[in-house]
C-alpha cells in the first residue's frame, strides 16, 4: 500500500485520538456532557476503511468514537458543537455526539437502537442503485450488534437484491461488559456471510494496509453491482465502554492500553518506510493541537442552541 495514503491515515487517526482525549478531559472537568463512547484503539481501522471509499459514497456508523466523521471531513467545530449543544451542532441539539450528521460529506447518521443502521443502509443502497449507480454505502457496527435480527434481515435483503451495501463489523470482543464469547455462538462474525451467499472476510483491524485492501475489494464488488461483503475487523477497545466505565469486568484492561494500541504500531511502520520522522511527527501533533484548540475556542464562544429548537425538525 501507498505510503502517502498510510501517512494520511496516521495523520487523521492522530487527530481523532487527540481530539477525543481533549473531549474526555473537558467532560471530566464538567465542561461537556460525558456521553462519549471512546473510539480509542479503533480509529486506525475506521479511518483505513473510510479511506478506501470515494468522497461521494456514504456511511452509517455506530456509537464508537468520532473518527468516522473526521475521516470524512466533518469539521471538529461541528462535532464539538454537537457534543456541547451549541449553535453549529449538526443535529441541532437533538442527537448530541451520537447522531452527528453531515450529508454533504456522506455521513448519514446513527441509530440509537443498535443495528438500526442495517435496515437504513438497505434503503440507502436501494436509492443509490436507482439514483446514483456506482456509489456505495458502508455501515460500521460492533460485534455485539451483529446479534440483532436486523443484521440477518438486512444482509439477506441486500444480497438477494445485490445492493451496493458494505457491512463492516468492528469486533472488539465486548458489548459493554459482555465478552463476545458469552453472547455470540461463533468466534468470527464473518462466518455468518455463508448464510447469505456473500464474501465474509476477517482482517486484523490494527493493520491499516490490510483493512484498506479488503475494504477496497468490497467497495469494488459493490460498485460493480455484485452486492454486499461482510468484513470483520478484529480490533481492540482501549478504554471502557463509555467515559465513566471502570471496566471491573475486564481484568486485562490496563495491559490492553499498553500493548494493543495500533497507533504506535502504525507510526513505527511509517518511520520504517521512511515517510515519517520526529520533525514531521512533531508537526502533525502541533497541527492537531491547533485544529482542536481552534474548535474548542469557537465552540466555547458559540451560543447555546435556542431552547425552542427542541420543537423543530420533527416534520419537514
Amino acid at each position, binding site marked *: 500500500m501507498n505510503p502517502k495514503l498510510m501517512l494520511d491515515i496516521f495523520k487523521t487517526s492522530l487527530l481523532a485520538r487527540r481530539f477525543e482525549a481533549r473531549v474526555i478531559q473537558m467532560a471530566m472537568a464538567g465542561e461537556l456532557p460525558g456521553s462519549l463512547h471512546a473510539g480509542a484503539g479503533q480509529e486506525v481501522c475506521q479511518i483505513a476503511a473510510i479511506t478506501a471509499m470515494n468522497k461521494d459514497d456514504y456511511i452509517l456508523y455506530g456509537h464508537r468514537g468520532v473518527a468516522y466523521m473526521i475521516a470524512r471531513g466533518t469539521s471538529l467545530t461541528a462535532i464539538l458543537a454537537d457534543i456541547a449543544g451549541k449553535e453549529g*451542532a*449538526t*443535529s*441541532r*441539539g*437533538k*442527537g448530541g455526539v451520537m*447522531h452527528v*450528521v453531515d*450529508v454533504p460529506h456522506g455521513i*448519514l*447518521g446513527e*441509530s*440509537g*437502537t443498535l443495528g*438500526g443502521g*442495517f*435496515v*437504513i*443502509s*438497505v*434503503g*440507502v*443502497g*436501494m*436509492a*443509490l442503485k*436507482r*439514483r446514483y449507480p456506482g456509489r456505495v454505502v458502508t455501515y460500521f457496527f460492533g460485534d455485539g450488534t451483529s446479534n440483532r*435480527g*436486523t443484521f440477518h*434481515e*438486512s444482509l*439477506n*435483503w441486500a444480497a*438477494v437484491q445485490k445492493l451496493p451495501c458494505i457491512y463492516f463489523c468492528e469486533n472488539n470482543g465486548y458489548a459493554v461488559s459482555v465478552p463476545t464469547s458469552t453472547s455470540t455462538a461463533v468466534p468470527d462474525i464473518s462466518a455468518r456471510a455463508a448464510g447469505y451467499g456473500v464474501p465474509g472476510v476477517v482482517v486484523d483491524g490494527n493493520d491499516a494496509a490490510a483493512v484498506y485492501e479488503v475494504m477496497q475489494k468490497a467497495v469494488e464488488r459493490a460498485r460493480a453491482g455484485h452486492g454486499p461483503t461482510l468484513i470483520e475487523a478484529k480490533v481492540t477497545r482501549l478504554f471502557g465502554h463509555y467515559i465513566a466505565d471502570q471496566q471491573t469486568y475486564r481484568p486485562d484492561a490496563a495491559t490492553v492500553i499498553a500493548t494493543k494500541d495500533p497507533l504506535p504500531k502504525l507510526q513505527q511502520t511509517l518511520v520504517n518506510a521512511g515517510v515519517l520522522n520526529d520533525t514531521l511527527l512533531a508537526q502533525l501533533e502541533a497541527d492537531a493541537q491547533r485544529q482542536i484548540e481552534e474548535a474548542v475556542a469557537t465552540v466555547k464562544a458559540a451560543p447555546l442552541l435556542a431552547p425552542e429548537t427542541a420543537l*423543530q*425538525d*420533527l*416534520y*419537514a
Partner: protein
Amino acid sequence: MSVITYSKAINQALAEEMERDENVILYGQDVAVWGGIFKVTEGLRDRFGPERVFDSPISENVMVGAGVGAAMMGLRPVVELQFADFIFTAGDEVFLKAGMWRFMHGGAYKVPLVIRAPSGGSGFGPEHSACPEAFIMHAPGLLCAVPSTPADAKGLLKEAIRLDNPVVYFEHKLLYAMRGEVPDGEYTTPFGKAVVRREGDALTIVAWQDMLRRTLAAANRLSKDGIEVEVIDPRTLNPFDRETIIESVKKTGACMVVEEAYRTLGVGAEIGALLLEHALPYLDKPFKRLAIPDVPLPTSQHLVNFIVPSEEDIYKAVKELVA
C-alpha cells in the same frame, strides 16, 4: 365522477403517483407478481416494471427501515405491510426510525415514506385484525390517515405520497369492496381537515372507516325516530382537526366516539380530554366511547361481533344518551 371500489381507488392513486414521479417505488410481500394478498396492487408491476414494484422477503424490519433509508436518499417508497398489526413487528423501524430519524438528526433530510397498513376485518385472529391507529397517533413524527370512502382513499394516498413526512396509511379491510364516487381527473385530499358527513343537532358522533359506515346506517335509523346526529369523519389522526370537532360539540352539546381501537387510550380518549379542555361550558351530557373492550380481536366471527360496535350498539347508545 366515476364509481369504483375503495381498493381500486388505492390502486389508481398508486398508479397515478408512480406515473407522475419516477421516484415513487412500491414493495411488500406479494405486491408485485401477485398483486397483493388483497389484490390492491394488481397490474402495477406490469405497468411500472420490477425495479419499481417488487416482492420483498418476510423481513418487516427491513421493509420499513429500508423505506426510511430510501426516503432519506430521494426515493418516495410506498411499503405495504400485509396486516396493520405488523407495525409492532417492525416496531423499532416504525416508531423510532420513521418517526424520529429526521428529528434525531436535526432535520438533515426528509422522510417521504408511506406505510400502507390494512387494518380491521375479522376471521384473521388477534395478530391480523387490529386497528392500531391510536398507537400511531400517540407517536411523534408519524402522520396518520384513516380514509373512509373511495374518494378519500385515493385523495389521501396521493397526498401521502407527495408529503415529505412519513405517513401510516390505514386501509380498512372491510372497506376494500365498498363502492363510491371518485372525482374525475387529478385531485388530492389535504391532511388535517375533517369532514362533516351528516349534519344534526342532537349529538356529535366522531367515527371513521368501518365504524363510520355503521354510524351512518344508525344515523339513518335515528333520523326516522326524529333524532338528527351530526357525524364527523376526521380523515386523518395526525394532523388531527380538533377545531371541527370542538365547533360541532359546541353546537350539539354532546359527543360520542365510535371506534375499532381498544377503548382505554383509544382515539376517543384524546377527544374526551380535548372537549374537557375546550368545550366544558357547552357540554350538557356525558361523553360516550364505543370501542373494543380492551381485549384483542378473537378469530371466531361471532366472538368478534360481540365486541366490535355494531349499528345496533350505536343506535342504542345514542338513544340512551339523548333520552
